[in-house]
């Protein structure tokens, strides 16, 4: 066990830093950076950012798992180098790999299942952010249960004619393209008969409507497809194999440290909040009940942080994450919810003020975080689905009985 990086990796870190110093010299904005601020540079896709990304790819820093001929930097897998790169780019607030479902989900899918033409057409532009994607999986009434998808595509004159409705589609208003699961063989049961299609968003018959969530804002969309005609060769993988094609996507792990990093920021914010808010004439942080709960949460947070390092180490050694990898999501979403809930208790009576209300501590942002923490619990596989996966694949318990 050694929390320091070896000399080789420290040299690598120095090299990355030098590169950043030379090519991305924007002054950091300083104190109190918000999460939006933090991620801001990541999503910049202006000419300067694109030029920088191209340089960084050339140097082997970004999109290391993508072959050079499709626009990646084609480096041998090295989770420690990836972590160092992410840490240093974050520190310098330099444009990093484009976030979002195009690079993280579509690109690995195309690499595994796409035709040569699809790879050449889409991957490079997706990595640079010039093609933006949204994901068309969820449907009303089919959240975690993709087997019950109802959007249908029928082949007609060299085109898939798509009819149906997608929901919870973030970025649908900005995206040029959608990758979607649709039912192409309605006579087949459940997971069979689903195909993976690439659909251009300006196709006639596609209607995007913002979907307001419980916070009152509309960060998602519904996408209605009515006789939308999609060229037949916009299918990825074989017809009817979309379930397998889409699952392969999920194998590509996202950064292992990033999640806990954001939770740490939220937690530190909570501590500052407890120091700032007064109740009965003294800062809430002095209340033993609150201190006790904060320490309980911090233990879980430290566990999550070093759990990430443990998984990273497993990756670096070429080992499987096993049960440790399966519990991460449920653990972190529950922790996030509990942090948000303690924040509500810290603000006390003023927790009833809405986000943005100037009289609320921290402008009521913790109330918003509380609602979002519920949304996160729901999204990405509801908690009960996660529990089933952990019990069945992680602990080896039997699958559910079916009626």
């Amino acid at each position: 066990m050694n929390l320091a990086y070896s000399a080789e990796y420290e040299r690598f870190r120095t090299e990355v830093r030098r590169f950043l110093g030379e090519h991305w010299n924007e002054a950091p904005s300083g104190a109190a950076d918000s999460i939006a601020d933090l991620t801001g540079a990541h999503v910049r896709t202006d000419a300067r950012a694109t030029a920088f990304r191209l340089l960084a790819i050339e140097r082997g820093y970004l999109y290391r798992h993508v072959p050079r001929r499709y626009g990646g930097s084609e480096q041998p897998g090295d989770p420690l180098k990836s972590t160092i790169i992410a840490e240093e780019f974050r520190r310098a607030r330099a444009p990093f790999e484009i976030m979002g479902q195009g690079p993280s989900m579509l690109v690995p899918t195309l690499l595994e299942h796409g035709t040569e033409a699809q790879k050449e057409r889409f991957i490079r532009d997706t990595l640079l952010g010039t093609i933006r994607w949204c994901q068309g999986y969820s449907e009303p009434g089919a959240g975690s249960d993709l087997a019950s998808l109802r959007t249908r595509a029928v082949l007609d004159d060299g085109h898939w004619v798509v009819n149906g409705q997608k929901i919870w589609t973030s970025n649908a208003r900005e995206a040029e393209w959608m990758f979607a699961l649709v039912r192409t063989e309605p006579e087949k049961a459940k997971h069979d008969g689903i195909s993976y299609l690439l659909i251009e968003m300006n196709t006639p018959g596609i209607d995007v409507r913002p979907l307001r969530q419980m916070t009152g804002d509309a960060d998602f969309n519904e996408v209605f497809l009515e006789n939308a005609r999609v060229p037949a060769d916009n299918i990825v993988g074989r017809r009817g194999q979309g379930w397998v094609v889409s699952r392969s996507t999920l194998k590509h792990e996202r950064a292992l440290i990033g999640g806990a990093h954001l939770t740490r920021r939220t937690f530190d914010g909570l501590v500052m909040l407890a120091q700032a808010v007064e109740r009965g004439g003294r800062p809430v942080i002095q209340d033993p009940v609150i201190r006790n709960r904060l320490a309980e949460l911090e233990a879980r947070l430290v566990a999550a942080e070093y759990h990430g390092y443990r998984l990273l180490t497993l990756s670096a050694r070429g080992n499987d994450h096993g049960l440790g990898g399966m519990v991460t999501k449920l653990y972190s979403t529950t922790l996030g919810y509990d942090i948000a809930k303690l924040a509500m208790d810290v603000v006390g009576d003023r927790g009833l003020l809405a986000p943005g209300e100037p009289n609320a501590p921290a402008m009521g942002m913790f109330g918003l975080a509380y609602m979002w923490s519920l949304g996160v619990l729901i999204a990405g596989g509801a908690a009960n689905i996660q529990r089933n996966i952990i019990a069945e694949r992680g602990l080896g318990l039997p699958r559910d009985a079916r009626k």
Partner: protein
Amino acid sequence: MDFGLSEDQVLLKETIRRYLGSECPTTRVRAIMESESGHDAALWQGLADLGVPGLAIPTPHGGAGLELLDLALAAEELGRACTPGPFLGCAMASAALLASEDSDAKARWLPAVASGRAIVTVALGEEGGVWDAAALTTRARDGRLTGRKLLVPAAAVADAILVAAQDGDGPGLWLVERGAPGLEVAALRGTDMTRRVAAVTLGDAPGVVVAGGRRAIDRARDAGLVLLAADAYGGARRCLDMTVEYALTREQFGQPIGGFQGVKHQLADLATELEPALSLWWYAAHAYDHIPERLERHAALAKAHLTDLYDRAARVATELHGGIGFTWEYDLHLWFRRAVFDRAFLGDAELHRLRAADLAGW
């Protein structure tokens, strides 16, 4: 020995539930909460015609002459239906006025509140989580009030505000009328959009003392605690009912999700906590009129416990609904938001548990 509702009380609940079912479906809740004032005078008058604001006001003052329990049963139904309006402020103000010795104030305001002609509310809480009469910083001198009150319910539509303040003799309540010079009411945006709150600033504003000492303030607070507990019970129960119904109809993996033991046990646990909790607030409400020495402590316990449960019920309900429960269009978040209000208003669960511990003499 009879720890149950009378036939009249059952009828009262049914009447209110039927009225709200037809007059205040969630479509109307949404229309009201999205309106500027958050107040629908017609709906409130309808409830007043049913006698709701005057349930616990004696008949000589134009009310039904019943007890806080009856008012709390109404609160349960309003909570169940997520009804917008100035109910809580009026109920607390009535409780305060009834504890006052000022027969003029009673004669003027109680019949008006009972009939729905006037809205009166109570301005108690101050910056820094202060809800206790002894810690107030708002000052009264020579019939003039100076200070700032946060989170005053229904203040923007109130005809009069009972302001808790201190003068040389200690705490008391002063009545400030709408439009009084030096009175500023600034609406605040709340998470719960069905019960509006405002910040009330008093700059040498004229007020008439209606009660000296802390008793009227405490009665208003204790009534408020019980009514919040009842509202929370009604809302939590509704969350459970909605989720059971959803679990019976929504299918996943080829069966209603209510057939999965994971879901069944989450709902069973919720029902197990809720069912006995009913008796906790019933008892506190009963104590308000019959066992005064137990009131403060049990009102505090009931408020803390029921609003915690409401929060939990809203969470379990949202989680089990999945994506649809997170949409604005689906009604569930109305209760989720209302739970946030019930939990926070008049002080949170920990505050009241520690008060209850003090009151128990531990």
